[in-house]
């Protein structure tokens, strides 16, 4: 896959279709790839990497990158294409300056899962026949790929690319039985006391690093209300339980109807807070109250909070 992507990127660079390539660059370890822009063939050949640990959603970088001179090539996984479409609908990215290559995806791996299995001192990870051979300074171990798959990928909602200029690999289908609302339903079935205890346990770990907000493709405000000293709610720390709740409720609400459920918020949370469960609650409610809606699927469709019907249910 990496070879095909690199080859195509080199071709498009060479024939002048694009002037830059947005992808991933190699890290110190087999799993810590950083999103990067490559401008020359040498840079690509030197540093371009694509593997199961390239989980980052690159679409948000296009807000900045598509405003620069020249066309940029971007590699998008199926879930990333939803974010791309949503940004497009919100006029945040300039389509003409972007060349999208959709890449097939069978789920990304989460190194945290490997580490949770006690694999410390990882020096190499090799994929073969649905298995990872993980080499560490303490010996090597083989792990089934699905055991290391990121949580969000286990409940993948779609393997279909909703936008692309060309594809590498196969295009998939929307996954109808992804069961992504299972945990939301479990929580709904609890008593309010249990739910309250659950969320206090989770949100009390928040360190207000803003990683969830800053990585979120839907969080594209020029200045967040929580960063604006004139708003009266600017916070730099989760001082108490109220502010923890406030930040996460307001953030989830602000992206309601625009969140594509890409799962980046939970992926980046350094405190492992399942933030996607807040967004999924809104998605589930909107589906139930106002009809099925998938943000990013169809940029021409009205978002649930941007429209109404006379017969809507009462609050």
């Amino acid at each position, binding site marked *: 896959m990496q070879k095909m992507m690199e080859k195509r990127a080199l071709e498009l660079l060479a024939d002048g279709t694009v002037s830059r390539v947005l992808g991933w660059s190699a890290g110190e370890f087999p799993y810590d790839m950083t999103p990067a822009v490559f401008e020359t063939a040498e840079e690509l050949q030197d540093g371009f990497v694509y593997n199961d640990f390239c989980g980052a959603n690159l679409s948000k970088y296009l807000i900045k990158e598509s405003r620069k001179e020249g066309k940029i090539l971007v590699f998008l996984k199926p879930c990333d294409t939803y974010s791309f479409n949503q940004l497009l609908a919100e006029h945040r990215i300039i389509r003409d300056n972007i060349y999208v290559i959709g890449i097939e995806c069978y789920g990304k791996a989460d190194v945290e899962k490997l580490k949770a299995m006690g694999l410390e001192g990882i020096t190499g990870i090799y994929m073969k026949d649905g298995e990872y051979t993980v080499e560490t300074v303490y010996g090597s171990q083989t792990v089934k790929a699905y055991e290391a798959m990121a949580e969000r990928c286990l409940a993948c909602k779609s393997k279909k690319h909703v936008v692309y200029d060309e594809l590498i690999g196969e295009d998939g289908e929307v996954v109808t039985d992804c069961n992504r609302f299972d945990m939301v339903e479990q929580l709904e079935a609890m008593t309010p006391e249990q739910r309250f205890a659950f969320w206090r346990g989770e949100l009390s770990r928040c360190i207000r690093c803003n990683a969830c907000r800053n990585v979120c493709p839907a969080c594209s405000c020029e200045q967040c209300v929580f960063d604006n000293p004139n708003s009266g709610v600017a916070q730099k720390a989760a001082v108490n339980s109220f502010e923890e*709740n406030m930040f996460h409720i307001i953030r989830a609400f602000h992206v309601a109807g625009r969140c594509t459920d890409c799962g980046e918020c939970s992926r980046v949370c350094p405190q492992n807070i399942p933030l996607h469960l807040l967004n999924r609650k809104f998605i589930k409610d909107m589906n139930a109250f106002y009809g099925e809606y998938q943000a990013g699927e169809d940029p021409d469709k009205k978002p649930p909070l941007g429209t109404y019907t006379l017969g*809507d249910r009462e609050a």
Partner: protein
Amino acid sequence: MQVTEYKPKIVAFCCNWCSYAGADGAGSARLSYPEEVKIIRVPCSCRVNPMFILRAFQRGADGVIIAGCHPGDCHYTSGNYFTRRRMALLFSMLDYLGIERERTRVEWISAAEGAKFSKTMTEFCATVAALGENKRLEDLRCKK
């Protein structure tokens, strides 16, 4: 020791055109409503940002009610339809976080419905009083 009866603090966001006038109507008709209700006048119920509601709780409210024109009667044509969607979602989210659903409410009260205003506020106060103090969405710093 004197035991004082617990009185909840209620914040009522009232739309300028209907519900605020409804409160006036209640007064003109010499109908009473609980003194615990503090009215904040807003141009339209859809002016109420979810943040306003959370901030009211932070500052010591035990219940928050939003009152606007009846659907179809919005003086800006469609504001209250948006309110209805937003609040349906927000209240459901508060419930999901385990925060008592009964502390928040939306009610449509027209300028002519002084009696409904009085009745709604009395009822809402009783509901919130039964729940007791807001503990789950409180900010201890703001308590005396």
